[in-house]
């Protein structure tokens, strides 16, 4: 986790005068809802996401997670990202550990039209990097569809993960056996605000019953560089009793990424 924090600090530190136009409508997993939209970051842009923190309470236990992510639009319609998770569990005692680290690619097939929704695919590779994370490498593929009507958007996500089932208590937010859900988004363009709600089903990589979880959240453009997000989480069937997350995203670039 701290290596990712270091990347964040280093990147922001050396790009204090960098230009960026963060997109308050660019949804990414967990920021603040689990469902994402079908558009990647812009070509030649980088974005750091800083989930601070993600709290959840489940059957008496409490978890506090930090979930940083770095993304890069390395080609038109393509994105590469690396994300991590550090969790503190309080369940009688207190345990702090990294969980998994995930690399992902993201490819957007098309711009939505009146009749065709935007479609994207996201292959993911998740590595074990801590005592609370998985014990095995997992590969997943997610399909994403987004369709807007006026100021409203609907997003559908579905993914499946290949790899061994983990023992109970291992794995985290970044890896699940399967995941599917739907989100609704309302955009307020003059306010630079998006309100969000989703419901999704997720089967933990450690087995166990399928959880059905709902999120409510908002993303707000603070400055041309920064987006603030916040959300509430509740399990409708299994999953956390209650949770919340607050995050910041920062968009920037480097002159060296542009043609001379």
């Amino acid at each position, binding site marked *: 986790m701290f290596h990712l924090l270091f990347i964040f600090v280093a990147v922001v530190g050396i790009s204090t*005068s*960098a*230009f*960026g*136009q963060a*997109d308050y*409508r660019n949804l990414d997993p967990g920021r603040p809802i689990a469902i994402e939209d079908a*558009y*990647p970051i*812009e*070509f*030649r*842009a980088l974005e750091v996401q800083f989930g601070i923190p993600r709290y959840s309470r489940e059957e008496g236990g409490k978890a506090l997670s930090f979930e940083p992510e770095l993304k890069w*639009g390395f080609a*038109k*319609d393509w994105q590469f990202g690396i994300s991590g998770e550090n969790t503190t569990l309080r369940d009688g005692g207190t345990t702090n550990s990294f969980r998994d680290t995930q690399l992902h690619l993201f490819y*957007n*097939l*098309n*711009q*939505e*039209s*009146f*009749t*065709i929704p*935007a479609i994207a695919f996201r292959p993911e590779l998740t590595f074990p990097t801590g005592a609370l994370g998985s014990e095995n490498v997992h590969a997943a593929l997610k399909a994403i569809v987004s*369709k*807007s*009507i*006026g*100021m*409203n958007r*609907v997003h559908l996500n579905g993914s499946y993960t290949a790899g061994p089932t983990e023992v109970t208590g291992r794995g985290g937010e970044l890896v699940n056996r399967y995941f599917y859900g*739907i989100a*609704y988004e309302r*955009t307020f*363009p*003059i*306010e*630079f605000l998006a309100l969000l*709600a989703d*419901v999704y089903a997720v089967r933990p990589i450690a087995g166990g019953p399928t959880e*059905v979880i*709902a999120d409510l959240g908002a993303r707000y*453009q603070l400055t*041309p560089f920064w987006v603030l997000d916040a959300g509430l989480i509740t399990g*409708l*069937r299994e999953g956390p009793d209650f949770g919340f997350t607050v995050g910041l995203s920062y968009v920037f*670039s*480097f*002159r060296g*990424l*542009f*043609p*001379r």
Partner: protein
Amino acid sequence: MNYLKRFVVITLIIAISFSFTSIGFARFEKKPEFEKRESIFYLYGKYNFATRRVYPEFNAMLNIIDIGHAQLAERLVSAKNEEEAVKLIEEDLFEMVTKMFLGQARRPRFAPSEETVAPESSKLAWKVNKAFDWTHYLHRQVYDILSDDRVKDKDQTIKEAFNYYRTEPERTFPPKLKSMELMEGQPFSGYWREKYPKFNGAIWAYHWLQLAANEALIEPDPGVRRQKVDLAVEEFKQMFRDPSRLPKHMPMAHEVSPTFAKRYPEIATTFDNLHTFHDIYMDLLTHPKVGDKRDEAYRQLALISDPSGNLETMPSHPLPPIPFDQQQPLLQTNQMEHMAMMMMPTKEQMRFLTLSSLERKEMTEKMMKNMNHGGIKNEGGEQKMDHEDMDHSGK
């Protein structure tokens, strides 16, 4: 469990409702196309957002202009018929942007993405959207560079921004002036400004402010520059307080920003071509006999983007710089008079502006009779276009 069921049912109802609603817009999409999104970040520089920092009121005008441009297309696409569109644009939208310009309504804090303000019209012709966005980026970059005195070599930095702009030929407007025939000589030409005269004046006022800002920001003395920017903004607001002051022709660089045009001729021409295409796009969006809007928009985009065909032959001699608060005689000349002026030497243009409206009309008619543009040409040579060539099946 009951909550879950309700949540899922409500979400599905919303999703299905959207699918049905989108059928209404499908009339614009004769042939569904898989178009690439290809969003690109704009050029990094220390000057980015300098306009916002140094000239916040001017920057606020630019943000509202973005809203006005985008909402215009959105309302055209969303209106059920022409009567509704005229009301939505000439009355409601004009009032909305006027209130924003004059500080009587909430303003956008940043430059909005067109896609968020105009989600439906953005789907109509994505390649057009990309060309508009990309050229608006260049607009903003030039303002930022000229606004920021930390930039030591502004000419070189602007050249770099322009070179970056030119790296995407599919979304650039050419640096050679395209013929006014593209805007004036096509079967759908003039329809937009005939049906929506007030908001057309607003669009031309937007373009005037953008040109005036180029001329103001090129001033090397920061104090004088600020005075000029403030004057341009105040004159712009005055046009919305008193709409009779809105321009009666499409303002161009050689008349409003001659100093800028002399120093950066390729960029000035690129912006003129962008503004010309804005008018062409509005004409084809509004004209009821243009059936396949996307097809026609892409055909027109290809025509105007072609760097060698349909170039302007009128000399367009620059006017001397005219103070922004003394440009009303110029701005009140109509489009035909403006085109007549494009054929005159500078001195004659200045004299033309002192004539009575009757005298200007007579002189313009005389000059137009002698004018022969030769029509719009495609790659294969001259193309005769008339209404019969259009697809009449659409809106």
